[in-house]
């Protein structure tokens, strides 16, 4: 066991004078105390998980980009052919499902941010008042978040089913002539399913906002009350501005949720007309009748680009904060 010194690096060269508490940067000094075995251990500790993650998540993501410009039947690598932008052209110009899918993904996001998000915030503000039974209420609103999207899909089918469902049974719309097909009618089914999605999203948002509100300094409220501000003014001018970090997370989470939406729709009606989503189109290309790898990858690339527009700024902002901290 020999203690090796690594190549001198400028930052580590400056040894802090004795008596001075080591600054966080001093961890560079760690390196000199590491034995060769330690460094091999560290290499494995970071390396193994990274290799697994990159191989299955990033290599495949880049493979999606590469394959989007090819046509391939999946049998043998020599059948891969470069076709340039043809997949995209076909997607944008000929696929009758593509633009509706993009539109539905956008609607999904707009609805989630417009209805369940403010509702979740409202519930969080009310439940943050230290009222009685707060836990009971929280549990009720949060319960759907724990369930799997697939189970939620089945539960809401029992409500929307045109023949036996709760809604049609109550309003008598399950008889011939008055029939309302919540699941199959392309004008209705997206909205029906968005109610189910909102039902779940509200609890999720409520929990995030409750956590954010716990971080609000109580003296702010007191000061605001002393100034004679009423509840609404306090919220609008004092509380809401301090929730900015939570709002950022909420926005990102909601966009990602809207792009990932899949299980619920698949269980509900397999993404039939009216509820097409980009995620459904990609998946149908694999488990559906026609497995066109290049074409499916082109749809995935559209999904990837939209995601990155959100992910990159968010991460840059998050990690900037980290570095300053």
């Amino acid at each position, binding site marked *: 066991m020999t203690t090796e010194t690594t190549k001198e690096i400028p930052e580590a060269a400056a040894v802090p004078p004795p008596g001075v508490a*080591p600054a966080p940067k*001093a*961890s560079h000094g*760690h390196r000199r*105390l590491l034995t060769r075995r330690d460094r091999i*251990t560290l290499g494995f*500790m*970071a390396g*193994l*998980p*990274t290799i*697994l*993650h*990159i*191989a*299955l*998540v990033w290599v*495949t*993501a880049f493979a*999606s980009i590469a*394959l989007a410009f090819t046509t391939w039947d999946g049998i043998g690598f020599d059948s891969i052919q470069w076709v340039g932008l043809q997949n995209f052209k076909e997607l944008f110009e000929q696929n009758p499902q593509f633009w509706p899918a993009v539109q539905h993904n956008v609607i999904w996001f707009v609805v989630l941010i417009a209805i369940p998000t403010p509702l979740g915030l409202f519930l969080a503000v*009310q439940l943050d008042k230290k*009222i009685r*039974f707060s836990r009971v209420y929280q*549990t009720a609103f*949060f*319960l*759907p978040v*724990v*369930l*799997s999207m*697939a*189970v939620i899909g*089945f*539960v809401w089918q*029992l*409500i929307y089913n045109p023949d036996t469902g709760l809604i049609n*049974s109550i309003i008598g719309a399950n008889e011939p002539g008055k029939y309302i097909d919540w699941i199959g009618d392309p004008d209705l089914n997206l909205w029906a399913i968005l109610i189910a999605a909102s*039902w779940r999203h509200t609890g999720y948002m409520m929990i*995030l906002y409750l*956590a954010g509100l716990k*971080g609000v300094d109580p003296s702010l409220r007191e000061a605001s009350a002393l100034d004679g501000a009423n509840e609404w003014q306090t919220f609008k001018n004092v509380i809401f501005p301090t929730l900015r*970090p939570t709002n950022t997370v909420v926005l990102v989470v909601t966009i990602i949720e809207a792009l990932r939406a*899949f*299980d619920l729709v*698949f*269980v509900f009606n397999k993404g039939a007309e009216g509820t097409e989503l*980009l995620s459904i189109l*990609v*998946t149908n*290309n*694999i*488990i559906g009748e026609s497995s066109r790898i290049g074409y499916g990858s082109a749809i*995935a*690339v559209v999904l990837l680009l939209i*995601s990155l527009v959100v*992910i990159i700024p968010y*991460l840059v902002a*998050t*990690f900037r904060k980290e570095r300053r901290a």
Partner: protein
Amino acid sequence: MSTTVVPKPRTPVRPARILLHLFLAGASLAWLAPLAWALYSAMRPYAETSEKGYVSWPDTLNFDNFTNAFTQSDMSHYFVNTMIIAVPAVLLTLFLSSMVAFYVSRFDFRLNIALLLVFTAGNLLPQQVIITPLYRLYLLIDLPGITMSGKLYDSALGLVLIHVAFQSGFCAFVLSNYMRSLPHELTEAALVDGASVWRMYWQIVLPLCRPAMAALATLLSIWIYNDFFWALVLISTGENMPITSALNNLTGAYFTDPNLVAAGALLTAIPTLIVYFVLQRQFVSGLTLGANKG
């Protein structure tokens, strides 16, 4: 905030408070209604509901649909499948992501921000972005004798690997934040005393991360149990499906009997509900750990 032990006088009951409680109670009931409806449907025999309609007073309420759904569709078999996937996946994810977190939070190698970025971004990608090449990759990888299918495709191992790869992004991010908040002197001292890196990780840092690990374990268990998508695409044999994806096949077989479907869906939800009620605090803190520090 005063820290006296004098009980605070309870605020007098104001009309506004009563209104608020009425609203919250009403909204809570509305939120529980879909599940209550599913439970009500599941507890009634199909013959009765088809005769009297679904919105009607019950003549019989029992758990026959539950026992039928459980035995006829061999649900216990699918629960076992889920366990075979979820238990190793949760443990491996925590193990691997805590190692990465240890590395990036305790050793200021210049890679760490980049590494953490890669992990975190990877976890934010929609799953469908990577599924097409992943599906092909799984078909290409031959594992004769290791998995039943002889490939990575259609095997529990394949599902475990993708769960670990995908979820370790989130966990590495949360754990590295957590580890960064631990005092540096802890490991500095150990290092000076000549403790190996592995010992620092295993005996000093990891035990201190217990609360975060418990929260993440709860969250991961529920997420992986609830997974529908990976299994739908990467498992082809119905026999090998975990419970949540198998439910899709069950309902396909019993679609003529909504009561049985309701029972099956609720049975599938029971384990997650138990975990949630027992470990509510961990679950919620896990969700919010990722969203804001501490």
